[in-house]
């Protein structure tokens, strides 16, 4: 199939330089990680892999990642001052270079410590032009882009859970653009991921929590930045 590009994949994104993959993409990964963490982050440790580890200072990858953790979009003018802003917000930051295995050259793992001591780890790759792919949350392998409202549900790997969840989405008139299920071990835990065309209302999220077999629910609303424009590739 031929690749497909929209006009604003070419004239865009509007972003803070210097590199769409090393700066804009890094900010997006940081922001998605923050949304996944869902609550106050007191410490963020970044493990940089490949090209990220070699050139992160010159490309401002470090500042962009921290800006993302602070909730900034890739076109936020405060991005270059993110280190100071993190300090003011009382978030401790560290960077180290390391191998994350057989992954894309521009990959980072972010270990976030929350106020209650819980540690959430998110791994993402910046795959070009500012587009990103989240590949791991905690111990679970996942795969989603953050271009759509994304629903992440951890659940027991048993029959009926997926059907129950999709029925609730159907009842809320939510169209599923992409859906995938990742399971680490048969009959144990699994993660389902829905990328949807509409944001999911609070009431539906509440109902989803009550579905038998569902463990945790995380909902990532789509960012209103120019990069969140649906990319068709």
């Amino acid at each position, binding site marked *: 199939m031929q690749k497909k590009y929209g*006009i604003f994949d070419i004239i865009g994104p*509007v972003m803070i*330089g*210097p590199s769409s993959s090393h700066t804009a993409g890094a900010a997006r990964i940081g922001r998605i990680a923050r949304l996944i963490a869902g609550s106050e982050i007191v410490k963020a440790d970044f493990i940089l892999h490949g*090209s990220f580890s070699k050139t992160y200072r010159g490309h401002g990858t470090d500042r962009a990642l921290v800006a993302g953790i602070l909730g900034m979009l890739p076109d936020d003018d405060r991005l270059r001052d993110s280190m100071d802003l993190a300090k003011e917000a009382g978030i401790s930051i560290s960077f180290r270079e390391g191998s994350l295995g057989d992954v894309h050259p521009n990959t980072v793992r972010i270990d976030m410590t929350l106020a209650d001591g819980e540690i959430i780890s998110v791994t993402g790759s910046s795959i070009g032009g500012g587009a990103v792919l989240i590949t791991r949350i905690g111990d679970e392998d996942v795969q989603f882009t953050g271009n759509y409202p994304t629903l992440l549900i951890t659940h027991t790997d048993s029959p009926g859970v997926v059907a129950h969840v999709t029925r609730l989405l159907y009842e809320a008139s939510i169209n599923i653009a992409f859906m995938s299920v990742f399971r680490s071990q048969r009959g144990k835990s699994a993660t389902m991921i829905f990328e949807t065309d509409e944001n999911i209302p609070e009431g539906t999220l509440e109902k989803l929590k009550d579905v038998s077999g569902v463990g945790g629910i995380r909902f990532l609303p789509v960012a209103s930045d120019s990069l969140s424009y649906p990319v068709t590739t």
Partner: protein
Amino acid sequence: MNISSGSELIGACEKQGITIGEFAIRQESEETGISYEEIWNRMKEALKVMESSTSKGVSEKVISVSGLIGGDAYKMGKYLKEGRSVGGSVTTRAMAYALACSEVNASMGKIVACPTAGACGILPAAVMTMKEEHGIGEKDIILGLFAAGAVGAVIAQNATISGAEGGCQAECGSAAAMAACAIVQMMGGTPGMCLDAGAIVFKNTLGLVCDPIAGLVEVPCAKRNAQGVLSAIGAADMVLAGVESRIPFDDTVEAMYSIGRAMPESLRETGIGGLAGTAAGKILAKRIFGEK
């Protein structure tokens, strides 16, 4: 875009009797379900950022994060005012603006990637120069940007716009081809003439490698942006004079892609070969990495 090639793009525009820019907005609206007006305003916002990044670099000395580049757009702007330019005000202004965007980008300022951040100076330099030197109005500039976007989409769909994949010819080459199309359309050329200008640009940028010092989007990227807009202006003038490209646009895109794939990895954004591998390049890289 639901257009698979440059020739298909020309055909569709001719059939409907509209410009490439107009066609692009209609297509975009049809494919995304977003209104014509909203898509128009989105490009208007992008143009605002282009305006601010071109003017910022010329009115003040902007220095990159690494300190490797900066202040050149300011020098060019001053030189332009002095009126001593060899090439005249159009080329001097265009180069000043292209350098300006590149410097703003390298200083972690706000830019529009078009098609990439590394080549972000070429298209803004072209349209802002057309505005100031030829009095092109905002409506026609925005339509020109849509034309550039459509042509860029055709390039991306059939080849690549990534330096890591196809070298600088894929980034600055593509940006210059897009800018050439925009200029020709703004000056009243036909869709066929627009793509002929794009083809001429590619013919003159084929083989350009991506060899940035220390892997940063600075040296030689800023000056290649300046060169890219000159290439676009030159190609536009040739086409507007009636010169035709013997090799059609689609074939030049194919050539660019096949050359890109034949390039060794050391010349595709790795910061290893070419200028990055020279004695001076290595010394500069060492200085940057030594500052850790």
